């Protein structure tokens, strides 16, 4: 009886603050869970995106997950199988929950279906949000679509498993490359082991490779020895303070940097060199 009376005697003021705390607490709880899930959902660094995709963080912000790119890809006239009259599987797929790619976003796996780099780039022109940016594949001089400007990724050769590096004759990737002798060229080398044969080693040029993955698809090894990685993963970055002294453009870049601070500032640079040189080595 006593407890029941207590239960009903909550003032409206008290009730207001309790309700407020209740709603705030549950809101924060839900928000934290939701944020955690969403942060996890967007981490898919090894994903290959369609042509002309914005940089990954911007792409994730902008893509509305409508699948118009994937539909334009699979239903393009050039994708009709001449034998069956039906479309072959499209390059672009929409990520499912189990795909290790942000759910609902388009991506492709070159070993399964590479990008055939259509002249009219239907996937990019279909995008309603601009997550696939037409400007990125439009030649600024002619104003026309230019598939050689695509930057979906970069082909990387594992010289340990590439049989051309063993000295066996294979140029499957070189011949599959739509930009043959530009994106992939063959480097000739003498095979010292036999003394009379040549190596024909495939070498990728990052300035021309679009990451279409036709090489990865064509590779004859069990697991491809040449494969496409996103450019942010495959490429390093030397830093602005390394200058190509023989390159006029790079020289120009340095001249334009004049006035900016080019000194490194960290814990060690705050002291004089003799201070840390005399300190011995710390492990």
């Amino acid at each position: 009886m006593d407890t029941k009376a207590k239960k009903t005697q909550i003032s409206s003021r008290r009730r207001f603050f309790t309700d407020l705390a209740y709603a705030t607490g549950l809101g924060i709880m839900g928000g934290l869970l939701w944020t955690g899930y969403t942060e996890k959902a967007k981490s898919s660094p090894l994903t290959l995106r369609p042509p002309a995709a914005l940089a990954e963080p911007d792409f994730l912000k902008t893509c509305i997950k409508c699948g118009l790119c994937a539909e334009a890809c699979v239903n393009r006239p050039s994708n009709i199988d001449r034998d069956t009259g039906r479309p072959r599987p499209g390059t672009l797929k929409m990520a499912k929950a189990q795909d290790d790619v942000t759910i609902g976003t388009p991506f492709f796996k070159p070993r399964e279906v590479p990008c055939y780099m259509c002249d009219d780039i239907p996937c990019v022109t279909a995008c309603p949000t601009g997550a696939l940016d037409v400007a990125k594949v439009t030649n600024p001089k002619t104003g026309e679509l230019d598939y050689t400007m695509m930057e979906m990724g970069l082909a990387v050769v594992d010289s340990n498993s590439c049989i051309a590096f063993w000295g066996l004759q294979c140029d499957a990737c070189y011949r599959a490359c739509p930009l043959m002798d530009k994106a992939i060229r063959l480097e000739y080398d003498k095979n010292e082991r036999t003394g009379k044969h040549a190596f024909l080693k495939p070498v990728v040029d990052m300035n021309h490779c679009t990451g279409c993955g036709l090489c990865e698809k064509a590779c004859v090894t069990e697991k491809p020895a040449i494969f496409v990685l996103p450019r942010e993963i495959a490429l390093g970055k030397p830093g602005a303070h390394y200058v190509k002294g023989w390159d006029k453009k790079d020289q120009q870049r340095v001249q334009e940097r004049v006035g900016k601070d080019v000194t490194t500032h960290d814990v060690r640079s705050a002291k004089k060199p003799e201070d840390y040189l005399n300190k011995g080595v710390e492990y």
Partner: protein
Amino acid sequence: MKWSNIKYLVLRRIVQLGLLFLYFMGNAYGWKILTGDLSASMLFQKVPLADPFAVLQIFATGAIVGVNVLIGAAVIALFYGIIGGRAFCSWVCPVNMVTDLAAWLRRKLLIDRIERKVWISRNVRYYMIVLALIVSAVTGLAAFEVLSPITILNRGVIFGFGAGIGLLLAIFLFDLFAVKNGWCGHVCPLGGVHALIGSYNLFRVKHNSENCTLCMKCKTVCPEVEVLGMIGKRSEFVAGRECTNCGRCVDVCDDDALGFQLRNFLETNTGGKQ
């Protein structure tokens, strides 16, 4: 079973399945009638359509979107704002079929009769909208779109099902055992957005209390039962913004006490909240 008792139910299923069919054919056979999915689509390759809530979340992430998707969101918002009301939820959304099945099973298995222990406010959906926008802004990814069972089911039909379909089963079980009409009637923020968009649309159910025999069949089937407060009391429009215009109440009413009418805002008795 009389046709008049299932009319709107059958029409709704035809519209829902028909849209899914058109989307599916748009991908599988390149039909140009309706391409894309419920997040954004193209009608006859000409008219862009887009989910206003998805576009709002994209805004929250700080991204700038193309004009096509802005027009699309405006088209959808105008259509439901003027004509459809919250009809997206009951006439278009594929999850409606899942949760309707759960609600039907609840009635058949008499789960409704068991004392309800889980209680959720019907306003949770509006808090979910705010939360979705905050989380989108914090994480830089449209937050509801990565867990929305609506788009997961919709994309599953169009592009093939994945593991995400488990979420649909979870919602089915939630609605069946935890809360009656739990997902669509309490939690779903997209439903909340459509309730807000459709607050002042033209087509609404009108109640005629003179014909009403207080059988309460309408209240049994209504997924948003709070909107039927006037049943047997006042002859007025079902004006609550949460009404999905599903027409189930009109179907089950044998006394001609409920029916769709054009809402006349000029009359004083429009059924607005008093």
